[in-house]
């Protein structure tokens, strides 16, 4: 599971953000997972919990909320918009897994379903992001 590496980035960036805001303990992390990266919620949560243990002095009864974000793709050539899930079943297992590792290989393995262009935008739902953290000052 390479998810662990991304979970670590979430934990480290949350700790860094907490320090910047003078939070002594983090009590909540809100995470958005873009569907394009196809990260398994449970694996990711498992990794996060393991990491919270490692950095236990930075957390206090932390609530980790994970929200999934649908992937919206938009063609720069013909303006068509579509969702990743609409086309995922057309991908081979290897192609889907490659996108799991590096979401941008969607520009290699997929095309605009309307005009065939590789020049499209990932408008939302790409990968891992931290939407907010909460904590206590003392």
């Amino acid at each position, binding site marked *: 599971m390479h998810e662990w590496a991304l979970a670590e980035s979430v934990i480290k960036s949350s700790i860094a953000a907490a320090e910047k805001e003078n939070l002594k303990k983090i009590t909540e992390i809100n995470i958005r997972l873009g569907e394009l990266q196809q990260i398994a919620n449970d694996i990711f949560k498992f990794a996060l919990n393991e990491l919270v243990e490692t950095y236990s002095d930075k957390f206090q009864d932390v609530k980790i909320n994970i929200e999934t974000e649908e992937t919206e793709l938009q063609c720069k050539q013909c303006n068509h918009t579509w969702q990743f899930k609409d086309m995922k079943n057309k991908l081979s297992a290897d192609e889907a897994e490659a996108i799991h590792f590096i979401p941008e*290989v969607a520009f290699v393995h997929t095309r605009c379903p309307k005009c065939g262009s590789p020049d499209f935008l990932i408008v939302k739902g790409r990968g891992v992001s931290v939407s907010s953290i909460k904590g206590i000052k003392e």
Partner: protein
Amino acid sequence: MEPRPSVIQTRLKDVNRVIAVASGKGGVGKSMVASNLALSLAKQGKKVGLLDLDLYGPSSHLILGFNPDGFPDEEHGIIPQEIHDIKFMSLVYFSEDKPGAFRGDDVTNIILELLAITRWDDLDYLILDLPPGIGDETLDVISYIPQTEFLVVTTPSKVAFGAVEKLLKILIEGKLPLLGVIENMTRDSSEYISKKVSKLNVSYLGYLSYDAQVEDAIGDPLKLLETNLSKDILKVSKKL
């Protein structure tokens, strides 16, 4: 909040030196230098990693004769496969070398992702093979791996140096670590480049002759190690 940058230095914490083989100009031999330098250092017993950041025209795998078969292993990240004792990472694991199109933001995302998940572990040298220009790739390396030392490649041509000089000036004004300039594909001795480089107060690290043997050795590291180019690169590697 973008979480990935915060973990990049963690991934590189046991990497002693990061050297980016760069140039303002394309086709000057960045990939040839990066790959052969990696081979040379590995042969000298150093622990070496090679990261191909030329996402449009990845070349390092072609030069090293590496045709990835399957994804890198996953374990708390991804583990580069080893080719001739070089830990190798490139987009080709994931692109199957098929064509695609990336805009600037996509380039940044790919680089961030590769840096955030690749486990280099212990390395003496991590060599970065950069594309030409002063665009997203170069700027991202400067942002996210500020310890990067630049090894700049040029050819003897005025046209090449015109573009290379721009990169050198950007590195100089930013006071970024700059190892020096390598002149590649030199045919007849001329002091044009060495003088231009000295004027900028940058080290001229020597030249690599144009070597007609090289084309035939592409894809065969053992053959590459026997070329004159490889001998020239060995000399350069001692100066780093």
